[in-house]
């Protein structure tokens, strides 16, 4: 009896255990570790998009493109900075498409919810980032991009550059409408998430139209008709098309400085490499000399004065010593240096720039005592110490500025498309001074030789190039369009010309092969391609094909 009871008990007990412990298997597989995209406030993606775009602009323009545009040089690990040693695995675009993916999510959800402000911001940012992609690479996935949730679009086709630009113009037109209401007319604006304009539709509207100006001017040589019409339309109707004219309206993003990922790049504060990222970057002679020529006070904002100037001691032989902060070197040692490296010693006492790609071992520049890659060379100008901070008043990502807009208008006016070029030129310089917090030095600067407007494109572009410090991407695109400023390549470069685009990324060649190959076939080979196939930083994209620019 007992046994049987026992058995039944155990069997029943086991079955009950199994049954009671049964769980709903579907419910169990709902991920508890993050919000479901279906019901998440789209504004929570906005800061991701804006910070992504902001940091990208600085990373490009304060990074290798500052090297290309000869704002800076590196004296360690400088191959891609000084010498354009790029390949198809150097510059990927996945980061930009990731920004666009978040932006698309934000836009589509906002559209469904009727959040017109966020939709407007979404269209501006879509134009901004697609614009950047086509500026950097040329033809690119656009109409079929970001549709990878559908297997049919896992490998998107590339659109021609003019089609992307037309899409941008159309989107910015829509954004201009979406952003035309007053704040109270929008059903939902989350100010905190707008880390550029704190939820101001009117400022975003100016951003939209200013961005359109940027891309119309991009076509000034390739398609001057469109450029002229577009710019004239905007400038001619400031009520419908307000633009950024004052530095107060600059599309700036402040760095937070709380941790390494929201801080100004290459700062000292969070550098786990002991500051070497910052130290490797030195001022380039091209910018330093151009600014010294104009007695430009901005140079003191951007560059550090040379720590230990050098004086040549003509009388001594084989002596080399530092006295009272000056290094005295005998002539014979200077001769050795100049013979070894083929460049003259720079004995300036204020700013010493490093000539572009002039040395095989740039850490040896100007008789440096320190040959390390993260060189502490005291005989060259470093970047100004304010850029070692994690955040600061001047440490902003500047997505588009009044300076840029005014220089665009100056150029348009010079072409005879709109009003007074000189006013725009002066306003551009003034906006730049104000943006860097030295507006009070503007008047003096305008009296310097070579600063007053001389009605040349070279002068306008030169000032635009200077004002693009830490944001050199824009001046690279200007250079490509105009061949200005007239930069010379150094001796130790991959090819003897300034590159005009990034290589298409290897990822696309691997994983989107036929579409990438078709786009590459549309590039125009040049004499500087060297051993590169058509996919080269020296192949011309559509926007400069047939323009005879930049070289």
């Amino acid at each position, binding site marked *: 009896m*007992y*046994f049987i009871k*026992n058995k039944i008990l*155990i*069997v029943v007990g*086991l079955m009950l*255990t199994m049954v*009671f*412990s*049964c*769980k709903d*298997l579907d419910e169990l*597989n709902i*991920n*508890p*570790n*993050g*919000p*479901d*995209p279906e019901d*998440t406030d789209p504004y*929570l*993606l906005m*800061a991701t998009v804006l*910070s992504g775009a902001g940091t990208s602009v600085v990373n490009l323009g304060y990074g290798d493109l500052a090297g290309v545009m000869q704002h800076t040089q590196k004296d360690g690990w400088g*191959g891609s900075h000084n010498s354009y040693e790029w390949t198809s*695995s150097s510059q990927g*675009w*996945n980061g930009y*498409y*990731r920004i666009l993916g*978040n932006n698309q999510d934000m836009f589509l959800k906002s559209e469904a919810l009727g959040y017109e402000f966020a939709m407007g911001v979404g269209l501006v940012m879509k134009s901004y980032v697609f614009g950047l992609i086509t500026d950097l690479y040329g033809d690119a996935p656009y109409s079929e991009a*970001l*549709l*990878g*949730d559908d297997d049919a679009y896992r*490998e*998107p086709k590339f659109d021609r550059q003019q089609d992307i630009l037309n899409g941008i113009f159309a989107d910015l037109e829509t954004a201009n409408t979406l952003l035309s209401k007053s704040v109270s007319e929008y059903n939902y604006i989350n100010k*905190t*998430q707008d880390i550029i304009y704190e939820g101001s539709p009117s400022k975003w509207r100016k951003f939209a139209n200013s961005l359109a100006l940027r891309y119309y001017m991009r076509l000034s040589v390739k398609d001057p008709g469109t450029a002229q019409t577009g710019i004239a339309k905007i400038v001619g109707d400031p009520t419908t098309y307000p633009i950024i004219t004052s530095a107060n309206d600059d599309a700036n993003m402040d760095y937070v400085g*709380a*941790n*390494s*990922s*929201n801080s100004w790049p290459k700062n000292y*504060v*969070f*550098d*786990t*490499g*002991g*500051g070497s990222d910052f130290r490797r970057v030195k001022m380039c002679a091209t910018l330093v000399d151009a600014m010294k020529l104009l007695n430009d006070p901005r140079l003191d904002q951007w560059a550090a004065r040379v720590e230990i100037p050098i004086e040549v001691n003509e009388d001594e032989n084989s002596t080399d010593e530092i006295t009272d902060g000056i290094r005295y070197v005998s002539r014979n*040692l200077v001769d050795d*240096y100049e013979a*070894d490296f083929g460049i003259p010693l720079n004995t300036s006492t204020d700013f010493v720039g490093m000539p572009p790609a002039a040395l095989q071992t740039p850490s040896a520049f100007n008789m440096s005592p320190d040959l390390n890659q993260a060189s502490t060379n005291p005989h060259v100008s470093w970047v100004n110490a304010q850029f070692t901070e994690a955040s600061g008043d001047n440490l902003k990502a500047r997505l588009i500025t009044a300076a840029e807009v005014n220089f665009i208008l100056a150029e348009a006016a010079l072409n005879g498309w709109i009003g007074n070029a000189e006013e725009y030129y002066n306003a551009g310089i003034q906006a730049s001074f104000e943006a860097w917090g030295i507006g009070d030095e503007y008047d003096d600067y305008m009296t310097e030789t070579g600063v007053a407007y001389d009605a040349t494109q070279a002068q306008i572009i030169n000032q635009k190039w200077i004002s693009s410090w830490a944001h050199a991407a824009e001046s690279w695109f200007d250079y490509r369009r105009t061949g200005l400023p007239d930069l010379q390549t150094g001796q130790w470069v991959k090819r003897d010309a300034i590159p005009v685009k990034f290589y298409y990324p*290897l990822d696309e060649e*691997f*994983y989107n092969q036929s579409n*990438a190959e078709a786009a590459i076939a549309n590039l125009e080979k040049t004499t500087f*391609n060297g051993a590169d196939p058509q996919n080269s930083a020296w192949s011309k994209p559509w926007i400069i094909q047939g323009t005879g620019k930049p070289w």
Partner: protein
Amino acid sequence: MKQKYIFQQKVNPLFTLVTLGLMIAFSLSVQAGDNLDKSISGKVTSSVDGEGIPGVNVVIKGVQEGTITDIEGNYSLSVADETAVLVFSFVGYNAQEVVVGNRSVVDVKMTENVEQLNEVVVTALGIKREERSLGFSVGRVDGAEANRVAQDNVLNSLSGKVAGVTINQTGGAGSSVSMVIRGASSLSTDNQPLFVVDGVPITNGLNNVAEFGSQNNVDYGNAISDINPDNIESITVLKGPSAAALYGTRAGNGVVLITTKTAAKGDKAKVSFSSNTVFDVPFKFLKTQKKFATGYFSYTPDNFGPGEFPVVTPAEAAGAGMELDRGYYAIQWDSPRDANGNQIPTELVSHPNNVKDFVQTGINTTNSVAVSGSNEIINYRIGYTNMRSRGLIPNADLLKDNFSLNSSIKANKSLTISSTINAGRTWSNNRPNTGNRGSNPLEAAYKIPQNLDINDFKNYWAPGQEGVQQYAPENYNNPYFLANEVKNGFSRDRIIGNVKADLKITEDLSLMGRYSVDYYTEVRETKISPSYTREPNNGAYGLANSSNLEKNIDFLLTYTKDLGDFGLVVSGGGNSRYTKGKYLSNSSGSGNGLIVPNVYSVSNISSGALSFNSSLSERVIYSVYGIANLSYKNFIYLDLTARNDWSSTLRANERSYYYPSTSLSLLLDEAFDLGGNVDMLKLRGGWAKVGNDTSPYNLNAVYNNGGQWGDATMLTYSTTRLLPNLRPETATSWEAGVEAKFLGNRLRLEGTYYTLDNVDQVLQISTPGSSKYTANNINAGLIQSSGWELMLGGTPLKNNDWSWDVSMNLSRNRTKIIELAEGVEFYEFWSEAKSRARTYVGETIGDIYDAKMVVVEDPNSPYYQYPIIGGGDSEWQAIQSADTRNKVGNFNPDFILGMQSTLAWKNFSLSMTLDWRKGGQYQSQTYRYSTEDASSQIWLDNAINPNGLEGAELSAWLKENEDQYIRNGFHIVGGLTKETGGLPENFSGKVVNDGYFIPGVVQTAGADTPNDFEDDVYVENLGESGTLVLPYIVSYPWDFGAPSLFDADFIKLRELSIGYRLPTTFTNKLKIQSANVSVYTRNVIIWTKGKNGIDPERAFQNNSSRFVQGVERYNVEPWVFPIGVKLNLTF
């Protein structure tokens, strides 16, 4: 709270388990007895040597009463009357039944049963089977063998012992140990087998590497190391899916069944004690050069004017400076200062033993005590083990405490309840970073310039700056500082246990029910003091807490029937498996630092700098399964199994998956008369399928939190596109084998061939980022493994005094990717040091590709295949590995050979295990970095120095030997000093003899038309004037992987042990049942083909998120020669 969760909430599984376990333990004192009146005594002896056999079961038939023999073999008991029948039984002997009759003394001689020895193996679900009946290959290692030498991780003791099993210890004591059976066949997982301890499946992810602080990767060791080797009775390795099909999902990589010790049947209460201590004496180090001071140029005093002294500064972080031990003087980093504060030049002297002085002898001590006993009703074993280990690196340790309780109680004739509980803590006060750069103390020790004495760094704080600034040159880390002030502590508490009921319902029908739990919680805490160079803000702090629970409920109903010639065993069962993982982490993000130095608390991290994370993961699988074993006349055995799983990780319509297996064993010796010398001849074969689900939450993506931008939140979508309708993966395998035993079991052979097809793997394929996703999850592909295993064993010698057993196993596995997703050409495992481990469709897993050197491609040129020197730096030019298919190696071995030998003479025994891995290559990042900074002796030794030849003579000589010195590989001509062939080169007016050149050509025309050779013009770079001479410091070809690719072949003496069993005459006097003492060594590297001081086994390292084969990165603990002593006592 929903209804269905109630059971789960109300009953704490641990509580249940512990309570039940304790109940069983307390009932140990319960004894049963009856009144019986006739006394019998006697002695049981062995027919072999006439000695008494202790521990023999003596049972009165039909009464279930009895006793066991004592140490001399004597027994006494009482029986009811003369008709009583005594049954004598003992493992390894034939059981005997004896009628008592009118005797009062019943002596018995027992005969050995050779066949029975070692025949029963534990197979899936804990079912015990005769090995002869199995249609698949199993590997077995018994506890004594696994525990012969002390190991911090039980897996290490399997090295070389089981055919087809690869064990990789990835670092020093306490680091992760990988076990791969029959080769890696899954591209997306770590290929670890399922471990089952006494029926409890336990968690053993390989990847337990984590990092708090910048470049501070720490391997906390995988959780299998919580298993106490001292508790192990036996280990069974079920290799193919056919053996393991019943375990389902996780069994695709094989199953390791671990059975822990229980009291032997009839053991009187006994106490056993063992103590084991091993000293790891470091003896071999990296081949770094010890002759040159830090610096970029190898100046001599001639380069300096009178009274002028060179400055030798660690800021020039390279080993190409002035020659040491030549009586040269220089201003050195540690030169004393004169009254004016100017440094006084000191002699440049080498310190060749810096790293040797830094490391210490590792010591590992393990002590165990266990009490066990059994009678007809209860059986128990209670054990405690502790391990204390100090590492080779100062301040590194690993400690373990482990309790175990193994008990069973026979509640009545048909019900047995048993329980196993293993509870323990593994912890460390500091686990150093041993596998990367950054906080790795060994890397720092190797980096101390050869002209400085490491002993001067022992006081690791700068004087007067204790707790603020370490004593080290700028940008250097003091190795003692890293060892003492970068502290990575952890502790893991774990309980593994089960309660099981076996019920015999009728003679033929039995039911087993079991509830089992594996739960652990791990706390990690890292404290980094201020001035670690990669943490600029007051150091760093991190605290993480994780827990893992796996709960299984299973039952099995078994029906056994003997139908004359036919035998039948049919079982059916079910399993419910629930797993839950939790993780919580708070730390100062990399480089973000602390508010106030030396305060290690989460609240000392500013909110913007705090990096935080938590996650939860749950999974359930329900299964039902059936097994049928059919046999005919002990000669054909057929097994059939079937299992169906329902997994929570898949969508409802894909959730259920079914997989069967079958195997057949044919015993030819039973079927035919093969003569007396053939003890067994078996053919076997099996086929099986195993299904596999995916990980939890792998169907629909959620937004990730990308941190804050000020007050703004940054959510972001996941760039991996998940697939909501994933299907289960399937592995299908075949295996066939033969087993034979001859000459009274003295010659044993076994051979197996297998194939395994892995279909529909859940893979991540790369997609163009422009599609929104950089990776897509897919179900695709066919990965095919095949291989063979051979085992040859013998007992060449066996007599009264001597016995010698030797066995050898040999295995080879090859895995190919037959198919991937459409349009996907290859799968990339890693990309390191300019090499990429890629496997293209149709090729073998493990191939390594490197950049291709630019050489003269014109077959008509006299310089055909000469390197073309050029580029920005006048060195070898590279075509990146991504743009070319330049195969340079493969990370998998050709074959693995293990050999074991045990020689016994009287009470002495000598055992050894050898492990030979043949073939394969690995990429050494250590060598790459240390050669780039000119501290490698190997690179220096390889520089060509043709006895002072110069100019045209040198050029002619090189061309004569062009195949050796110009083509094929990376060669440099030159050296670091004039005597060693260094060429003069001019640096800013100083002529230094540390120049080298690359033998090759410079192309002066035609480079832009690679396919047109007509216009190509080359200039020789072979030593005549115009040759590009560069300083030695830039001689390493950084753009290539091949120069730091080494052969991975090695031979290791895994174990060598001499044991002595004290004679019973002696132990009896001490009232000890048995006593053994042994001395041993283990894991001694005998030979490596790479000859670079690196253990090729360590080229198996964590690479961002998973372990990869074929990469070594500062995982360079010195080779050790361990000396161990072990003592076993049983009372």
